């Protein structure tokens, strides 16, 4: 494991809907870490994750993710991160397999990568032929996580990844995140399920009113 900084934020301000959702955040994340973001609703956790994915402009401060300066070129980081927000980013009218194949074509992944990811997340077989609209919330979540595996993201940004999963799905997710970390990925996730999340994370950060401190 190296101590290379995957995320390096210094006094970062992010304005969202004319409101400073992140007001002077300073923190860093090293390669291979699994970092938990905890804090109350509206503290700025989702904004931080979306900013790390290059989806939000940086109003002030310096923000580097995977060596890309988000102030000047936030597009460059996008193909190297995987973001799973509150929604799953799936097409409801397509089957699980069709969704997976669509995302794999966009990133140039092989069919065997798709099959392996679907097996890992337990959505292969009959479930793979089911339309996403007919799946349970937990099954959709697993499908969304499988699409992140296919994309081979170097940095996983997950917002409430355990939400909607049953006990088996949560255990499977934890194993998947540890396996992703072992394969060289870095994971940063927000969660309200503190006990489970702390057992998974290698470090915790507390987000309050747009600032970040060690938890």
């Amino acid at each position, binding site marked *: 494991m190296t101590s290379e900084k995957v995320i390096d934020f210094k006094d970062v301000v992010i304005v969202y809907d004319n409101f400073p959702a992140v007001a002077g955040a300073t923190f860093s994340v090293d390669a291979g870490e699994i970092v938990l973001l905890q804090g109350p609703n509206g503290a700025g956790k989702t904004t931080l994750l979306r900013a790390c994915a290059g989806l939000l402009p940086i109003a002030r401060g310096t923000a580097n993710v995977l060596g890309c300066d988000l102030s000047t070129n936030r597009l460059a980081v996008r193909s190297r991160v995987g973001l799973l927000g509150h929604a799953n980013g799936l097409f409801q009218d397509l089957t699980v397999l069709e969704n997976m194949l669509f995302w794999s074509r966009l990133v140039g992944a092989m069919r065997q990568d798709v099959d392996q990811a679907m097996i890992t997340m337990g959505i292969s077989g009959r479930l793979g032929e089911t339309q996403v609209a007919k799946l349970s919330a937990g099954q959709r979540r697993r499908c969304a996580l499988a*699409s992140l595996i296919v994309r081979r993201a170097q940095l996983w940004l997950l917002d409430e990844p355990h939400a909607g999963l049953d006990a088996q799905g949560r255990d499977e997710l934890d194993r998947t995140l540890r396996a992703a970390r072992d394969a060289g990925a870095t994971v940063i996730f927000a969660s309200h399920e503190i006990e489970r999340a702390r057992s998974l994370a290698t470090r915790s950060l507390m987000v309050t009113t747009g600032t970040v401190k060690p938890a």
Partner: protein
Amino acid sequence: MSQTPKSRVVSAVLTKDLRIEARSRVVTNQVLPFAGLIMIMFAFALDNDDVLQRVAGGLIWLATIFSLFVIVQRSFAIDTSDSALDSLRVAGIDLSAVFLGKAIALTLQLIALDVVLIAAAFLLYQVHVSAGGLVLLVTCVICATAGLGFVGTLYGGLTAGTTGRETLLPLLLLPVVAPVLIAATRATEAAFGSGGAATSEGWAWVGLLTIFAAVFGIGGSLAFGPLIDE
């Protein structure tokens, strides 16, 4: 990391949109009957063969444009309902390829719709077309639907995710597609020979449709990514 070739993204988005349409059948089960009803209601309202033959071109394109609003909103609803548009942004792909894929899918759906509407005009309005007129009509449909596909996708992207997009889209789009309505109507009238119009008169209007499609095709490719990003 190398970026996925643009042609692969265009093909993936095009296939995805057409597959979703084939499965949900919104165009065949909802848009087509809606457009057909417009044609039938005008036939009853005007109730005069001469008048109907004269206005057939305009009615075809009015029905097409009203249907465009529904298809564009549907096209972007499938991308925004579960935040798939955000996932496309994060995928780091060239968003102009997403624009082209969606615009081509929209154009193909509009062409299918127009084939039915023109058939309805032959049946309900008793219009006729010569061999030369048929060439003009086919060219007009391709150029006009391409223009509508490009401009519809651009404005669909602009309004995607905004509140009140159902009413905002027609308000923004109607003035912009007015040149298509006028030019396609004139070209179709020339193809049908409505009001004694010669077929040759229609080609200048097809030229205008081609320019419109080219402007919005190029402009849309350049503007779509930044628009979606903001």
